[in-house]
């Protein structure tokens, strides 16, 4: 007998189910293929749990309203694809500097520009890291199955709440639109993190940007704390300060809250990495082709391992460096013309030869292409 919690589900749907399980109560967005189902399902499901959905006039407004919802105390999310991700960038930077927890889903499609609206790609990887101006902290997660989409959406909310920062969930069209069996975990088995809020007795002295804490407590508007929020550099109370010292302290804290917690934030899976000649590093939908090819290569007696990144940013530098010392060659497989590749080469290039299996024509990378690449480099 099939258990009640086993379902056939699309990636975009698993994302919404995961978000609801994490406690999402607010969604603001603007429709765009291949992310639209996330907005549609949020519109359908949120009012049923007492939450709010709004379709804004554009993605800039979608990002702004998402931040507004979070400041009013609700767990908030928005979803988009490449062109909309570009539009959101200014307000994403605002959320990073003002430390507003929220989740931004980008179901990547072929670009640049309107590009290939219905075709998969992983070409927003660098935009997630560097899309908004200025130095800033980034957490970006990427799933490669439907169950992982569910789990990482919850994880994205948990990281957002724990570190008071926007978190990216980077899907690709393959994962967003693929249907697969998923066993939904029991709510009692899901760990949920809620933002730390100030105590009643902190009214009047509340510091929304208390530098003595790695992650300051977050009050919601309307609860009696009356604080100020600005995208200008600010002091501990949130008031603008045009001051080098204040800027240094603030910047080092918001970068530090991520950099000092890499072991908590960096998630990945490894396959056959104990004994290998060649490592393939991949992520998202592409990792599926890589795994299927590597299983076949293993059957043929080839010592090929896989590193599947689930946290794209911050980059899993420590582990990739370690692994690079155990192999002669690394292949980076991704649906773009070499974005993560540069990061891997930066970290591993001194220890081994790093090459790219990249593709950006709207087609997924196939297992055969991976096998051919293995042949070529081994």
């Amino acid at each position, binding site marked *: 007998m099939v258990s009640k919690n086993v379902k056939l589900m699309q990636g975009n749907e698993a994302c919404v189910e995961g978000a609801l399980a994490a406690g999402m109560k*607010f969604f603001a967005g603007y429709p765009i293929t291949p992310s639209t189902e996330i907005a549609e399902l949020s519109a359908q499901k949120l009012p049923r749990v007492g939450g709010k959905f709004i379709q804004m006039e554009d993605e800039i407004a979608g990002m702004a309203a998402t931040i*507004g919802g979070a400041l009013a105390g609700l767990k*908030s999310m928005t979803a988009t694809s490449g062109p909309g991700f570009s539009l959101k960038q200014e307000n994403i930077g605002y959320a990073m500097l003002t430390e507003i927890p929220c989740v931004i889903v980008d179901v990547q499609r072929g670009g640049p520009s309107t590009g290939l609206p219905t075709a998969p790609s992983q070409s927003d990887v660098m935009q997630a890291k560097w899309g908004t101006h200025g130095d800033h902290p980034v957490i970006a997660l990427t799933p490669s199955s439907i169950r992982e989409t569910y789990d990482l959406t919850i994880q994205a909310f948990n990281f957002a709440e724990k570190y008071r920062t926007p978190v990216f969930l980077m899907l690709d069209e393959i994962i967003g639109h693929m249907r697969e069996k998923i066993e939904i975990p029991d709510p009692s088995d899901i760990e949920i993190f809620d933002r730390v809020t100030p105590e009643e007795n902190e009214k009047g002295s509340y510091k929304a940007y208390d530098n003595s804490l790695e992650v300051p407590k977050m009050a919601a508007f*309307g609860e009696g704390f009356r604080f100020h929020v600005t995208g200008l550099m600010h002091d501990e109370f949130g008031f603008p300060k045009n001051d080098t010292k204040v800027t240094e302290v603030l910047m080092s804290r918001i970068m530090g809250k991520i950099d000092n917690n890499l072991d908590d934030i960096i998630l990945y899976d490894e396959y056959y990495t104990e004994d290998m000649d060649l490592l393939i590093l991949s992520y998202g939908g592409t990792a599926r082709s890589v795994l299927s090819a590597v299983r076949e290569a293993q059957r043929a007696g080839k010592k090929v391992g896989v590193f599947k990144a689930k946290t794209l940013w911050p980059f899993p530098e420590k582990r990739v460096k370690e692994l690079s010392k155990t192999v002669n060659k690394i292949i980076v497989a991704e649906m773009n013309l070499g974005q993560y590749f540069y990061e891997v080469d930066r970290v591993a290039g001194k220890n081994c030869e790093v090459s790219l299996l990249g593709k950006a024509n709207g087609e997924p990378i196939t297992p055969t292409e991976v096998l051919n690449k293995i042949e070529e480099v081994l």
Partner: protein
Amino acid sequence: MAVASKLIENNFRMNRLPHIWCPGCGHGIIMRGIAEAIEKLGYDKQKVCIISGIGCSSRAPGYMDFNTLHTTHGRALAFATGVKLANPDLKVIVISGDGDATAIGGNHLIHAARRNIDITTIIFNNNIYGMTGGQYSPTTPHGELGTTAPYGNVDNVFDICRLAEGAGATYVARGTVYHAKQLEKNIENALENKGFSIVEGISICPTYYGRKNRKGDAAEMMMNLKDTTLDKKVAAKLPPEKVEGKLIIGEFVNKTYPEFCEEYHKVVDKFMKED
């Protein structure tokens, strides 16, 4: 130090003053009008949220002792929409400049009005981009000078009140910093309207607009507001030739229409019960 008035003590962050505005800037008069209106209506300051974009005008919330949010250029209304929908118990006020509200933020302005979401928007219209040093805005009159209109502005202006009315705002008024008491009354009525309200407050920027266009000092610019405007009710009784060329001030729209958050909550109530 002079003792501050009760109004200032009750509504402003004393340790954030003095403000950054130039001597003679009109923006402070509108900011005071907002505080007067809030105080008169007796709102619980814990439940008042003031949101702005970027510009000289948008610096006002930083001085005001409420829940305050200084956002990105043009986007205040989009942030405010999120705050208001997430917590409809909050009294949400948006402060914006003519550039902030009608150029970069024009799209959000018309859509907030269309939704009739319960947000009171006060536009500090000084007919120029003050903060960036005097470039022409969508309300700089045709032919006037700006640093980016060195030979006279060839663009046309928005009539902010007619734009807001056309887009669906349920309260629309225009006042000036010369007519401070009347402006304050408009803000009060706007705050009491359940729906999207807009008050265009005509302000003055002596530093850039005034100097560039030889409008004289702040006092002369204030007198000019007196001479070039006409109250709507007064204008209605005058022959057309006496009204021509004057800027009409007063209340243009004050009507009742279903409000966005209330309509959304009807959906929540209905479907939460069904599940």
